[in-house]
């Protein structure tokens, strides 16, 4: 047991970081919306799902087969741009249709939550029954598509003896970290970012100071959607397949990561994502793969027992994110 852990330490660490990077990107969407609106956007996982289909569509349209090296990076960037745009647009549409009308009428937070769940189911079924058939011309159930092997995966682009990193995991990790740095800069340095922070801190005062709340909320959703879209592109790079319920499990994990790091806190989402990814992998190597979630969630409960607001604390403004 312990031998396994030691022997698999480096591969587990790398896999954990690659997995955690996707969790973290997805967790950002949950955490930002929560920070601004105090709303858990349960349809965020489905925005991710939309992103995976956009990414897969892009890769297929490019018609690439077994690309490697820098061409692969180029393909991933292009895929991420398309998926980010589609997912960002989808998130904005979601906000305008499912949340804004409720907000305008001062509906309770519970109503918004139900609206979120409804939107989630709607998007899933829309893809399951209509979109996948139309876009991919497949009659296969569940919107599953055959794996076409678009990418050439190398197991050891980075090779330091025990530490071998495959090209796809490296791109996932680096891509995710770059996106997070960009987001951090955006929220901390730009005018819109200041608007987001001020709204999170005190919406009423923010309005008095001339912040356009609707705009801030829209931007928050779009930014969260773009992050989900990039996560989706990286996910497609890793797994090359998707389906209409792909967001479900990942969404739960990402939401968990957001809570673990401190919901509403952008750097917390990062910390939570990587922690959860590593915990799952270390847990699997210690006790076997069926135990990965048991280990991860046990640690989550322990963390929340001693730090109810998560690793980095709860609010968006405190961490200056």
């Amino acid at each position: 047991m312990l031998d396994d852990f030691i022997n698999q330490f480096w591969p587990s660490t790398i896999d954990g970081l690659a997995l955690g990077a996707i969790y973290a990107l997805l967790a950002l969407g949950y955490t930002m919306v929560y920070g601004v609106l105090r709303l858990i956007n349960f349809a965020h996982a489905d925005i991710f799902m939309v992103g995976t289909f956009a990414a897969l569509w892009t890769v297929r349209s490019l018609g690439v087969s077994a690309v490697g090296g820098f061409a692969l990076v180029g393909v991933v960037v292009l895929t991420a741009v398309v998926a980010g745009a589609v997912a960002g647009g989808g998130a904005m549409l979601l906000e305008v249709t499912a949340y804004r009308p409720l907000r305008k009428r001062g509906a309770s937070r519970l109503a918004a939550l139900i609206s979120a769940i409804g939107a989630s189911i709607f998007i899933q079924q829309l893809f399951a029954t209509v979109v996948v058939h139309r876009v991919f011309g497949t009659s296969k159930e569940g919107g599953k598509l055959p794996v076409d092997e678009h990418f050439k995966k190398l197991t050891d682009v980075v090779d330091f003896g025990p530490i071998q990193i495959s090209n796809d995991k490296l791109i996932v990790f680096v891509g995710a970290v770059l996106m997070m740095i960009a987001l951090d800069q955006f929220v901390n340095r730009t005018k819109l970012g200041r608007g987001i922070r001020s709204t999170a801190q005190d919406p009423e005062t923010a309005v008095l100071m001339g912040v356009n709340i609707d705009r801030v909320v829209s931007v928050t959703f779009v930014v969260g959607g773009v992050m989900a879209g990039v996560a989706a592109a990286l996910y497609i790079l890793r797994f090359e397949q998707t389906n209409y319920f792909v967001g479900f499990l990942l969404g739960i994990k990402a939401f968990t990561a957001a809570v673990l790091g401190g919901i509403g806190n952008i750097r917390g989402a990062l910390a939570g994502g990587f922690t959860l990814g590593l915990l799952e992998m270390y847990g699997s190597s210690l006790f076997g793969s069926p135990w990965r979630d048991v280990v991860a969630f046990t640690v989550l409960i322990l963390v929340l027992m001693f730090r109810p607001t998560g690793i980095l604390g709860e609010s968006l403004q405190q961490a200056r994110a």
Partner: protein
Amino acid sequence: MERLGTLRRNKMRITGAVAVSAALALSAVACGGDDSDSGGNGNEVTIGFMGDLTGTDSGLVIPPKQGALLAIEQYNATNPKVKIKFKTYDSQGKPEQATSLALGAVKNDKIAGLIGPAFSGESQSVGPILEEAKIPSVSPSATNITLGDKGWKYWHRVVADDAAQSAGVANFVMNSAKAKKVFLVSDNQDYGKGLADAIEKAVKEKGAQTQNDAVDDKGTDYSSTVNKVNQFKPDVVYFGGYYSVAGRLFKQLREGGYKGKMMSGDGSLATGLIEGTGQQNAQGTLISCGCLIDPEGKTNPKAKKFADDYKAKFNSEVAIYSTEGFDAATAFIEAVKAGKTKPEEINEFLKTIAAPGVGKQIKFADNGELATQDIFIYQVEGNKLPLLGNSNEAKVS
């Protein structure tokens, strides 16, 4: 359809056995009843077929139904003294539906025998009815191990059970693939885990080193399993479960640098496996199954003739369990040919039958199991899953 296929298969195993027993029971009743009734009216016997014909898993049941239909039509075309009437019962794979259908088949249609039920679950519930009605059944596809242990006297199947599959896989893996280390992965579900555990036990007894792990069938990231495999460096990785999960696992194994053999069971015998793994990574993947799909006649020339006839009639290739459906019908046809038209007589005849089927020798042990428990190995080649051979003989490089 193929995707559904795996699920269907599993159900089918269950159902198949049930249907067979139901059919048998029904036929027994029919014969036992009034000779002037349809079941035993001298020049016609009714043989039923029960299984999921319209439900979600019908893709696993329609091939054996067509196989059985073909056998019976070919027989009737010879203008025999006693013709066979083929009657289907659509249980949709549901045990409760199968039960009422079986009662109706026994009482109203007076069937002399039943082919099916296709799945193991419906087989469990129909079995007792057929026992009581004394009607013989032959399932083409129910593979659950426990069905043979019920002490049913009227129940038979023409497919090897999951225990035989694990023994066959163990033989193949140890003798042909010459594996010293085997890594078992399952999806932690009844069928998959049962199969993986049984194979682990069987290869261990033959001296292989083993390790096991399980993956989440709803998850996508199996890298922790890949790490375990890479550390253990097995000669063979065997996955117990269905093809969609097998595809993801096999893809990640290959991408993770695993170079050894990959193998799975009947739940993965569908081209969906190749689609999910990616054609390149899937090449050479091995599949074990108690079913025979042999359109080229590698095992015997009859298989080719059957496949050609099947294609001519139904305009589709032979598929999973179509051979078994044909063989199950053949068992009843042989009985009728021998002048047995009453269920009890047919059942007596089945005890001693020794007829060559398309897939295997039709000969039953006392508990209704097929006497020869053949397991066949298939190997991915291009985008197809052609037969490699019997698990005792198949050669793999």
